C-alpha cells in the first residue's frame, strides 16, 4: 500500500521539533511594528495628537480669551503683533479661537461615531452572527436609512429637531449607525463561516462566549478602521451643519461656524476666512490617512 513507506517509521512518538521560541509574536504586536515603519501614518497620527492635545489643554495654554471682542482690532491680517493668526470679524483672536474651536469640532466628530460604533456594531455583529431572520430584520431597517444621502439625512434630522449641539450629535449618530452596522454585519458573516467558529460551537460553548472569544477579536479591527475613516466625515458634516446654522450657536468657537461668520470677510482678508477650513481639512485628512494606514497595517493574513 502506498502510504506504508519508510516515512511511516518516523512514527508519532517523536516530538516534532519546534522553531526558535523568540519568533512568537501576537497579532497586535505585529500591527504596531508595521505601523512604526509607516511614516505617513505616523505624521498624521502625530498631527492629530497635537491638535487634540492643544484643544484639550486650551484653557491652560495662556491663550487670549476666545470670546473677547474688540471693535478696533477687527480682521487683523496673519502675523500681526499679539495676534499670530490675526483676528476675526469681531476682533477675537483667531489662533485662540481655532484651538478652542477644535474642542467642539473634534467632540462633534468623534462622539457620534463612537455612539454609532456601539449601536451599529452591536446590531451588525448580532445580525451577522445570528443570520437568518434576525439578519433580515436588522439589515432591511438599515437599508431604509441608507436610502437617504447622509448629508441630506443629517440636515433634515437636525432641521426637524432644531439647532443645538445635542441635536446635531443625535442626528449624526443616526446617520452613522447604518454604514457601521453594514460593515460589522459583513465582516461578522465572513468570520462566522470559518471552521474555528464551527469548532467552537461543537465544543458546546454558549453563543455569547463564542462571540466574545472567537468573533470579536477578528471583527473589531476592520470595524474600527472603518469607524476611524468616518470621523473625518463626521467633522465635515458637523461643520457643515454649523455653517448652515443648524449646529453650534454663536458665539461658541467651532470651525464650521467660524467659516460661516467669516464668509463676509472673504474679500477683505481671504486667507483669514479660509483658516477654519484649513483646520477642518487637516484634521479630516489626517483621520483618513490614519485609517488607511491602519487598514494597511492590519490587512495581513496574520
Amino acid at each position: 500500500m502506498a502510504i506504508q513507506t519508510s516515512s511511516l517509521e518516523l512514527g508519532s512518538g517523536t516530538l516534532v521539533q519546534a522553531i526558535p521560541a523568540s519568533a512568537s509574536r501576537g497579532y497586535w504586536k505585529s500591527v504596531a511594528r508595521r505601523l512604526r515603519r509607516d511614516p505617513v501614518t505616523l505624521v498624521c497620527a502625530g498631527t492629530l495628537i497635537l491638535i487634540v492635545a492643544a484643544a484639550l489643554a486650551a484653557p491652560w495654554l495662556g491663550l487670549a480669551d476666545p470670546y473677547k471682542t474688540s471693535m478696533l482690532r477687527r480682521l487683523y491680517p496673519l502675523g500681526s503683533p499679539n495676534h499670530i493668526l490675526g483676528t476675526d470679524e469681531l476682533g477675537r483672536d483667531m489662533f485662540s479661537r481655532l484651538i478652542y474651536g477644535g474642542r467642539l469640532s473634534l467632540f462633534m466628530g468623534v462622539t457620534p461615531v463612537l455612539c454609532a460604533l456601539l449601536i451599529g456594531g452591536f446590531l451588525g455583529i448580532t445580525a451577522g452572527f445570528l443570520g437568518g431572520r434576525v439578519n433580515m430584520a436588522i439589515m432591511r431597517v438599515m437599508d431604509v436609512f441608507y436610502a437617504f444621502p447622509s448629508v441630506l439625512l443629517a440636515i433634515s434630522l437636525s432641521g426637524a429637531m432644531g439647532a443645538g449641539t445635542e441635536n446635531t450629535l443625535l442626528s449624526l449618530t443616526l446617520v452613522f449607525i447604518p454604514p457601521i452596522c453594514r460593515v460589522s454585519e459583513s465582516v461578522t458573516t465572513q468570520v462566522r463561516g470559518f471552521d474555528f467558529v464551527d469548532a467552537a460551537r461543537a465544543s458546546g460553548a454558549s453563543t455569547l462566549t463564542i462571540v466574545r472569544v472567537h468573533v470579536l477579536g477578528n471583527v473589531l479591527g476592520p470595524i474600527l478602521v472603518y469607524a476611524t475613516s468616518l470621523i473625518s466625515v463626521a467633522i465635515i458634516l458637523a461643520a457643515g451643519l454649523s455653517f448652515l446654522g443648524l449646529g453650534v450657536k454663536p458665539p461658541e468657537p467651532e470651525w464650521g461656524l467660524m467659516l460661516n461668520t467669516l464668509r463676509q470677510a472673504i474679500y477683505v482678508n481671504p486667507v483669514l476666512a479660509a483658516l477654519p477650513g484649513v483646520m477642518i481639512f487637516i484634521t479630516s485628512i489626517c483621520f483618513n490617512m490614519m485609517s488607511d494606514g491602519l487598514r494597511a497595517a492590519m490587512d495581513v493574513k496574520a
Partner: protein
Amino acid sequence: MDTLIPVDRGGPAQPLLLASGLQKHFPVGGGILGRGRKVVRAVDDLTLSVAKGETLGVVGESGCGKSTVARLLIRLLKPDRGTMVLDGDPVDEPHGITVNELRRNVQMVFQDSYASLNPRLTIGETLAFAPKAHGLPAAQARERVRDLLSKVGLDPNNYAERYPHELSGGQRQRVNIARALALRPRLVILDEAVSALDKSVEAQVLNMLVDLKEELGLTYVFISHDLNVVQYLSDRVLVMYLGKIVELGPVEAIYGDPQHPYTRALLSARPSMDPRKRTKEAPIQGDPPNPIDPPSGCRFRTRCPFAEDVCGRVEPILADTGRQSVACHIQVPGSGHSKAARTGVIAA
C-alpha cells in the same frame, strides 16, 4: 469535571452512535417567500451505526454528502428528519440527552487546518477554550493544554504560546486533533483530516491517530476521498454516492470483493504504483448528476454500465449479501434486473 470522563454504559455490544433515517436538504436560491424553492438533497435517509472502538471509513466523490454527514453526526447541522442514539441515549429528545451532551462525547477534526484555528488566539488559548467553557478552572485548563500538546507530539513549552500562522500544516493539524480531544470525547469524526497534508506528514499524523485511538479508547469516523488511507485505517467502510449509502461492510469485503458497480469503479480508479496495473480508461464517465434533481430510482444509474429499466423505476434498498450490505438491484434476487439471480439464491 468528572462528567467529562467517558463512561461506557451500554456495554461493548451496544453501538456507540446509531443514526437512522438522517435527512438533510438545503434550500437553494429562487422562489419568492420560499415557494417553489429547490433543494439540494445532500443526505437522504441515511442509517448507520458506529460500534465502540471501531474506525468507520466513509468514502465517496466530492459533493456526495460526506461532510454533511459529519456535520449531522455532531449536530453542527440539524437534520430535517431522523434520530440519533448515543450509547443508548436518544439525542435531543425529551427523555434523552441534549445536543451539548452529545458534543461532549463526539468531537470533530476539520479539513482546513488553517481556517479551523482562530488566528488571534495562541495554541494554548485555542485548546483551553472548550474545557474552560465547560467550567474547568484556569490552572487545570493549562495543565490539560500541556497534556493535550504532548499527546499529539508537540512540545508544550514551545507551542502553547504560539500563533497558528507560526506552525506548519502538519503541526496545525496536530493542534486540531488535540482540540478535538480536549473534552475527552468517545467518538472523533475526522473530516478529511489528513487530506491537505503532504504524504510523509500525512503518514505521521495517521500513525499518531492510530496510537491515540489505542491509548484513549477512541472510536473514529474517518471521512476521506483517499481510498488507500481509508483502507489503512478503517475496520468498516461506508461508500456514499449522491447522499445515499451504496455499500457498507468490513474493509476486507469492500476492498477485496466490492459488490456495487460504483464501488468497483471507485476502486479501479485508484492510481496504482505498478505501471502494468494502471487503468487505461476512466471506469466511469462524466460528473455526478446534480443533487438538486437526482435521478429517479437508483441514483447511480445514469453512470452505471449495467443500468436497466428497473433501476429507473425502483430505488434499491441497502440489502445484506452476507459479508456486506449493498444497494443494487443486481444483488437482490428477483429484483427484475437481468443480472440478478431469478429467485432465492444469494448472488455472489
